[in-house]
């Protein structure tokens, strides 16, 4: 698999088998070679297609570009799902739908790097609790997308909050919780209908208290491991060492096959498939970690096994090591002010996001919550105000990076979305006013140039299957 060029002939079993090439000059005389075996790396391909959109010009808005720029009295033109033009003077082409935006603001859509919508959906009942594969602490073989229930009404609430893309993660019970999936926030019949085309996978890992609490008591596995922070770290390291061995076995298979030998591929291991993909740089590590000292240890584990951590999630103590986070190029995805719900969240401060920003490190505002995801703009506003009170000069335009381009970078989708730039996906939000105000609402949310949410048009307010025929169906939410 893994180190060789892609081979495209796939069988529905998920294994791609390619007829042995005739170029077997190195083959020992008389040895007959079997077929080369490679692994299909995309067995659940995205079936996302943009909703129907129109050629649309939004004009006279205050525009934040998501990269730190702000333009007054701006216009933005969306065509074929892309941002065609924006700036001070953008004429309306023939046939364009023109939306008057006077007094309103336009921003890139919000990207939430940490959501459990669909895997811990509403209603939050036992039957829908699909986010943690509890039983053993190392489960990189499970994929969040196999748990995502597209009928979670939380997705539609998030649209009303201006969220256009989001990463759905497994929970944090396990050291390795499984693969995440990045979605465009549009309704669909299956998770594949929502999958962000081409977005890399993430791997959820978790530091600290949660794996200890879940396993240390022996209730959820017989080994009682991990039960300590050092047990956590031993668990990560052994798994990475196993992944290295797995990768070497596949590399050897590859070499031997090329040398013309008749060799069997290594036995496939779904856990190791994911971990080896991290080591190759194909999957991004998204690591739940609260405490500064634990993040510092994880940065060394990362170096020991030569992989990258894209972001520490929650990172309540990121402010204590903001310099190290900058140096290592790791983002911190944070709440504005949540704290104290467990010991490792006890040292939360309101200036966390602003201090990480000040240090030149990558700051992200995340939700981890079906209510918080509805008002991430307010969370950024609080963090901005707290930073200013601490004497930092941060503009609204800068603060919007925490909601769009920085999360896009952490997810590896920054070439497609996360900022207002010509040619990028037209994932934008038209706000009723200054989005740093509690009173401001998302009037319209666009994904790939199509209206997915319109506050003033009930035909553009999706209702989840679960809500149909129930009390409150189609009500204002």
């Amino acid at each position: 698999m893994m180190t060789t060029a892609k081979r495209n002939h796939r069988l529905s079993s998920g294994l791609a088998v390619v007829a042995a090439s005739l170029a077997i000059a190195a083959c020992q005389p008389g040895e007959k070679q079997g077929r080369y075996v490679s692994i299909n790396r995309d067995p659940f391909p995205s079936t996302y297609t943009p909703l129907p959109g129109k050629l649309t010009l939004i004009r006279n808005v205050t525009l934040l570009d998501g990269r730190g720029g702000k333009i007054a009295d701006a216009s933005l033109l969306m065509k074929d799902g892309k941002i065609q033009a924006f700036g001070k003077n953008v004429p309306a082409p023939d046939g364009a739908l023109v939306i008057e935006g006077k007094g309103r603001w336009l921003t890139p859509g919000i990207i939430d790097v940490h959501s459990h919508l669909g895997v811990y959906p509403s209603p939050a009942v036992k039957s829908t609790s699909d986010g943690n594969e509890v039983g053993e602490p190392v489960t990189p073989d499970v994929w969040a997308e196999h748990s995502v229930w597209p009928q979670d009404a939380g997705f539609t609430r998030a649209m009303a909050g201006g969220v256009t893309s989001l990463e759905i993660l497994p929970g944090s019970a396990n050291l390795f919780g499984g693969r995440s999936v990045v979605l465009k926030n549009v309704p669909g019949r299956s998770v594949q209908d929502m999958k962000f085309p081409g977005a890399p996978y993430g791997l959820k890992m978790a530091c600290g208290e949660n794996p200890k609490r879940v396993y240390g008591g022996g209730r959820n596995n017989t080994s009682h491991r991990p039960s300590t922070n050092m047990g956590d770290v031993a668990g990560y390291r052994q798994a990475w060492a196993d992944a290295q061995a797995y990768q070497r076995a596949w590399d050897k298979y590859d070499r031997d096959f090329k040398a013309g030998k008749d060799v069997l591929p290594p036995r496939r291991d779904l856990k190791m498939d994911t971990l080896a993909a991290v080591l190759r740089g194909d999957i991004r590590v998204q690591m739940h970690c609260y405490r500064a000292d634990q993040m510092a240890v994880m940065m060394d584990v990362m170096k020991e096994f030569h992989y990258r951590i894209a972001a520490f999630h929650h990172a309540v103590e990121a402010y204590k090591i903001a310099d190290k986070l900058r140096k290592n190029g790791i983002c911190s995805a944070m709440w504005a002010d949540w704290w104290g719900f467990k010991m490792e969240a006890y040292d939360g401060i309101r200036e966390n996001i602003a201090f990480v920003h000040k240090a030149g490190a990558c700051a992200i505002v995340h939700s981890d919550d079906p209510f918080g995801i509805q008002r991430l703009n307010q969370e950024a506003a609080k963090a901005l105000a707290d930073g200013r009170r601490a004497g930092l000069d941060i503009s609204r335009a800068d603060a919007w990076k925490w909601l769009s381009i920085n999360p896009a970078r952490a997810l590896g989708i920054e070439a497609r979305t996360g900022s207002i730039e010509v040619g990028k996906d037209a994932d934008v939000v038209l706000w009723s006013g200054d989005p740093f105000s509690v009173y401001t609402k998302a009037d319209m949310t666009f994904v790939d140039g199509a209206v997915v949410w319109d506050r003033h048009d009930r035909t553009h307010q999706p209702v989840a299957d679960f809500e149909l025929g129930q009390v409150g169906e189609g009500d204002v939410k």
Partner: protein
Amino acid sequence: MRSAIILAGMVLCALLLTAPVLADNYAITGGTAYTHGGRGKVERATVLISDGKIVSVIPDGKVPDGYERIDARGKWITVGFMVSATSLGLGEIGISADINDARSEKAKHTLGLDPADGYNPDSTLIPVTRIEGVTRASVNLTGGKDMWLGQGMVVNLGRGTDTIDRHRAYIGLDISEHGARTGGGSRPAMWDAIRAKFDAADPRTGRSQRKKGAEPDADVEALRGLFTHKAFLLVVANRTSDIRKVMALKQRYGFDVIVAGGAEAWRVADDLARARIPVVLNPLQNLPRSFDELGATGANAARLARAGVKVAFLAPDTHNARLLPQSAGNAVAMGMRWTDAVDAISVNPAEIFGIADHYGTLEKGMDADVVIWNGDPLEVMTSPDAVFVKGQAIPMRSRQTALRDRYETLTRSPQYRRLQ
């Protein structure tokens, strides 16, 4: 943070050094005051505070001798806000740390449990909460063993020794699916037990007469407060049918009830208004998180207030009690009048929880819980410049601000005290 300290005023810096402080005389001048919740707007107000009480709030009022003057030009002044049904002071950490004094799993009896037995006014949550402008709270257990949440109380978040404002103010009862699950396994099983308790304590039935020499039952003692109107019943209910049961309880037993949670209360808004039953709710709850909350909507608070129901607000949770003004702001964004939303975190909870004779407005003689804000208090970018609880100026310091100051610049060993 430097600017915050300057804004808080030299007065407060001086107080910091001489803590604990005694109530003193303050004149807050030049700001815009709201004396009755979101109403009673007074421009260029002089707010006089003496001996812990409000003396007057007068436009361009003179500052008498002996008053420390605090310039509040361009600022907004309100009463300190009140958050409903928290567990403040009953535990530091949510999970896997200190004992959670809000729980009742191993209790013998649950109805009469008294949160004052677990209340710790030194909890770090209290400074964290009050420096954000929330100065009063009702406090009750979160339960665990069955549907009873013990006896609720009201506290002020000041630094005095008299922090319990109203002891045994209410009895908490959770009749939602959560209460039913722990309190009998189903609603019928739970209600059988609830009625048995009430009937036993009902003075009209005569069954409450204790036999001579019998041990006083804490539950019966607590319930007596309901029938004598010294306490009320706070009932957690979300589904419409459960809220109707709360109305029926009031009808049958005659005691005062309030609905807490109330996700679907908007569906019976007129009936609640007619029955004069207040609703304490979380304005952010707009998801069908359970089969009890299918009708949840962010418009709940607006609809109830418009129907004439007295509404107060829950915070998202106890650690986030300080986010109460943000919740109120979101209620406004969902159609509630600004004045009604401010009422819901000031005069309304004062009346609902029975402390309106001394807290909730900036009228003469009321406890001086006063907050000077640098803008609209419901806005997310606004924060308090100064906070007074019962006339005491609160140092704008918490464990969190101490951590902030320590890590403002990163050093090799921040544990050493640094000279400012």
